[in-house]
């Protein structure tokens, strides 16, 4: 019984939440002020758009591709949200829908022409950034009131960022991990040949996954503008690497098919909190990027240890 609890499989599943818990407890200890409704809200609200971008990246990683353009894409969405969606809602929402369609098109392009997704998305990152500068040449714009009031919602008892993250993790988990359709989508990453032989269209699956990534990228940009109140063409460039690191930190892998939505959200939270933790430690900023990398390496090294224990059995 006790052996089952400490089996490598369970341990591997527990690693992301445990890392988050350790980080959160250290933060509470360093700065007791964070242990309040107000504190948790401030600590976690910027993690919500990162979590959404991480989920977007997870869909791409799930079909064995990599998206290097998500940061630029989220920035573009932020710029569109702060301008067009605010001024002419219908046109703005249409533009966002077109962006999701463009993402699906990218999936089709990558699949049909058998292009490396890294190259295509790296190229697209410049396209998104260029479009963002065209939409909003100088920083500005204004968040639509409904997004602003949603993101600054103060529900009783539990801070909004926590509710939003839990809801996001559960919804995507049920849809991708527990439903028949979700299993097929994941299968396309794990063993596309088998799925194709069974009669599924890999093209359609890839387009679906890229469209889903685009959809969550759009949500991420809108959430970000809701928090910052206005946009900047460079606002989310960091999200590209954060989202990849978040998926991997949450137990996902680069091989395709092996992802975890709950883990991805936890991974995104962990990365967002790692920055706060280091700043509460009063660590010299020159060391902070390195320290953030060190946290990543420690968690991944632990995972490797667990996997080796798994093999030994």
């Amino acid at each position, binding site marked *: 019984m006790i052996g089952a609890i400490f089996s490598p499989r369970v341990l591997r599943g527990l690693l992301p939440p445990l890392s988050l818990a350790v980080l959160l407890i250290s933060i509470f200890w360093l700065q007791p*002020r964070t242990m309040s409704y107000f*504190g948790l809200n401030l*600590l976690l609200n910027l993690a919500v758009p990162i979590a959404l971008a991480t989920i977007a990246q997870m869909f791409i990683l799930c079909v064995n591709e990599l998206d290097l353009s998500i940061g630029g894409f989220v920035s573009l969405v932020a710029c569109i949200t702060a301008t067009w969606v605010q001024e002419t809602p219908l046109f703005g929402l249409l533009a966002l829908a077109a962006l999701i369609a463009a993402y699906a098109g990218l999936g089709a392009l990558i699949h049909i022409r058998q292009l490396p997704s890294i190259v295509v998305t790296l190229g697209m990152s410049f396209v998104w950034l260029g479009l963002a500068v065209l939409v909003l040449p100088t920083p500005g714009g204004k968040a639509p009131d409904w997004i602003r009031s949603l993101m600054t919602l103060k529900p009783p008892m539990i801070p909004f960022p926590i509710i939003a993250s839990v809801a996001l993790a559960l919804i995507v988990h049920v849809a991708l991990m527990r439903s028949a359709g979700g299993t097929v989508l994941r299968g396309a990453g794990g063993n596309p040949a088998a799925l194709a032989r069974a009669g599924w269209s890999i093209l359609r699956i890839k387009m679906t996954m890229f469209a889903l990534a685009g959809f969550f990228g759009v949500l991420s940009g809108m959430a*970000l503008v809701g928090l910052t109140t206005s946009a*900047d063409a460079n606002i989310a*460039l960091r999200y590209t690497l954060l989202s990849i690191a978040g998926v991997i930190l949450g137990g996902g892998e680069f091989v395709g098919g092996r992802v975890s939505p709950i883990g991805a959200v936890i991974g995104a939270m962990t990365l967002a909190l790692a*920055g706060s933790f280091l700043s*509460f430690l009063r660590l010299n*900023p020159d060391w902070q990027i390195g320290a953030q990398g060190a946290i990543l390496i420690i968690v991944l090294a632990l995972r490797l240890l667990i996997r080796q224990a798994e093999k030994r059995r």
Partner: protein
Amino acid sequence: MLRIKGISVLALVAVAAASFGQAALADTAGKRIALSNNYAGNSWRQAMLRSWEKVTSAAVADGTVAAADAFTTAENQVTEQAAQIQNLILQGYDAIVINAASPEGLNGAVKEACDAGVTVVSFDGIVTEPCAWRIAVNFKQMGKDEVLYLADKLPDGGNLLEIRGLAGVFVDDEISAGIHEGVAETGKFTIVGSVNGNWAQDVAQKAVAGILPSLPDIVGVVTQGGDGYGAAQAIKAAGRDMPVIVMGNRQDELQWWKEQKDANGYETMSVSIAPGVSTLAFWVAQQVLDGADVPKDLTVPFLRIDQGNLEENLATTEAGGVANVEYSLEDAKTVISGAM
């Protein structure tokens, strides 16, 4: 009798307290001020942080404030600085002084700070959130002043070369707009060429060397700072007559100007903002915490160097640095009362 004595003692205490309040010592002794800085990768920003360190450590030592810590984000990114500001709120600072990565992108975090009762003062890279104080630089006026100086010095007018900064940055647009406004107003000059020098000597030198062969004679070069020395090198290499190059307070520029002045009586002027503006922001934050009535929009004066005070400024500028002034509490009060 005793009662009267008691009252007079009370009155004495009250007078003492009032005079202490005027010295701005009593009220902010327990307050903590943080600097949130987005970037530290050039000489100007390094000088800015050194000035902050120097002035605030003295202020902490003599008990004016309890703490004044500087925080710089590792990457120059809006989302990172927003998170940093939220962390500073959680750390319980009474005021946050910001040099912002974006004038708009931090507004959400700044609003959170104001709502939590934290005083926010932005400078250099200012924020537009109405609840924050802004110490802005009138970059447009700075560009215009360059042309006005040239108009005064070169009454016959002529052709100008304009060296711009980093394309797409608000500061570049403002200075350039001021230069063009000055040219239109004085009506003596024609801008015959314009290159981007990115506020860096090496970039400016390459850009000027590239455009020079296509230009007619030029009488003046209008710049944005950090580019004057590079322009001089390029013009010298091309074997042209040295025009009047407006400098930007960098040490290498002032050094070159001094050499030319000693050799052939070369005359020009130099203008930029002093990195010590961070210390002005510190004192403004201190004044706000002290309860002083401070207008939300303040303007920082430029640091202008002319033929007369060149030597004096060059002597106090370290090699590779920028001419600097550090502000005192009195300077801050003058700026505040000037804006009333």
